């Protein structure tokens, strides 16, 4: 790892100003992506601004059907939250299958959503639930937030502070995990929300997480796994890599979507 300077912020404002004075700073949350990347010298920030001790970023609240998950909330805390489970068990289920127990006890939802790895799990839930990404500056609808591979609408120094969503009537998530890394080789999040049915696919798109309009229409007409039988999944914008080619992923999308609907009930 290249040399770096560590700073521990105690408030969002302090973090933003530390980042402002850094030459090439980066925010640090659980470090489960960033420290690993720095060890491989694929990232070399001059300064790290640790967000883990900022109380404004911590905590889960559920009021009525509105769920708010602070950015610094670890995957393990989402997985075991009884309050979230009561209104949206699908996101607890998703969090409980990220990586391994040790990764879940460090990694945070804010880090995952800020990083927007094309094979990460949370982006599909955020997009599938039509959640709002709240930052220190504004609220960004999920449909405008994910802009490409590892790309988001976040500006240079903007801090993701929370993910907020209305609990859906039904939701389910199914992933085909890469056997080595446990990242999604394809993962599908389906939700029946007040604004309609939403289907979000991760791990498969050449441009990152995306919604599948054909599946959304079919499930709006009839909410059942069989409703997806006739839907065609076009492989032309899907990823091909050493693990799976685009045709295989197209098939996985359908299989995972059916499983997700079955899980949602």
């Amino acid at each position, binding site marked *: 790892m290249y040399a770096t300077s560590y700073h521990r912020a105690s408030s969002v404002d302090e973090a933003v100003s530390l980042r402002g004075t850094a030459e090439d700073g980066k925010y640090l949350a659980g470090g489960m992506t960033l420290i690993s990347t720095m060890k491989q010298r694929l990232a070399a920030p001059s300064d790290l601004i640790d967000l883990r001790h900022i109380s404004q970023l911590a905590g889960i609240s559920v009021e009525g059907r509105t769920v708010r998950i602070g950015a610094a909330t670890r995957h393990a805390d989402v997985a075991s939250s009884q309050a979230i489970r009561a209104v949206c068990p699908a996101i607890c289920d998703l969090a409980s299958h990220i990586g391994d127990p*040790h*990764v879940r006890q460090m990694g945070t939802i804010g880090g995952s959503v800020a990083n927007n790895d094309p094979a990460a799990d949370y982006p599909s839930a955020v997009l599938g639930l039509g959640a709002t990404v709240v930052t220190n500056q504004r609220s960004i609808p999920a449909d405008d937030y994910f802009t490409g591979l590892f790309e988001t609408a976040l500006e240079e120094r903007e801090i993701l502070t929370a993910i907020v969503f209305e609990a859906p009537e039904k939701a389910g998530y199914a992933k085909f995990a890469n056997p080595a890394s446990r990242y999604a080789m394809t993962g599908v999040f389906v939700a029946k929300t007040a604004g309609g049915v939403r289907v979000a696919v991760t791990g498969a798109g050449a441009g990152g997480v995306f919604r599948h309009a054909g599946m959304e229409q079919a499930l709006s007409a009839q909410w059942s796994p069989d409703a997806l039988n006739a839907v065609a999944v076009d492989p032309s914008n899907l990823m091909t890599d050493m693990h799976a080619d685009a045709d295989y992923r197209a098939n996985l999308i359908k299989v995972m979507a059916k499983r997700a609907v079955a899980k949602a009930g």
Partner: protein
Amino acid sequence: MTTVTLTVNGRAVSGECEDRMLLVDFIRVKLGLTGTHVGCDTTQCGSCVIHMDGLSVKSCSILAVQASGSAITTIEGLSAQGEMHPVQAAFKEHHGLQCGFCTPGMVMTAVDMINRRGGSLTEEVVRTELEGNICRCTGYHNIVKAVLSADAEMAAGRQAAE
């Protein structure tokens, strides 16, 4: 250089290090506690697992400065009174190790698993909970047996105490 202050295995320690020093290197090099191992550079093998504020974490992917202020337990801290922890005893009894390289991480993972889900472990749960720990020798069978046996013994111990 930054001063890192930790409570390690119940003892307050502090030391100077570069901000880029990994927690596992601080533990091994600065504190001389070499029971915690490093088996990969991709955060995948789990041989570096320790407990930070009571939860299992991979010490190879946390900076020492990030951990400053926290309470750490390493494999050396499990058997403080010179007597093996029930999980260590179960690994010995069930031959849950061969070369032993992965063992400190496996044991710390098993203790965390039992802390969180003790009394309700099944073979399937143990196998999924071991997702972040790789063993190149045993084929996992005896590790799983050891964890289940330690869980049953510790649950019985808790019941007897009640």
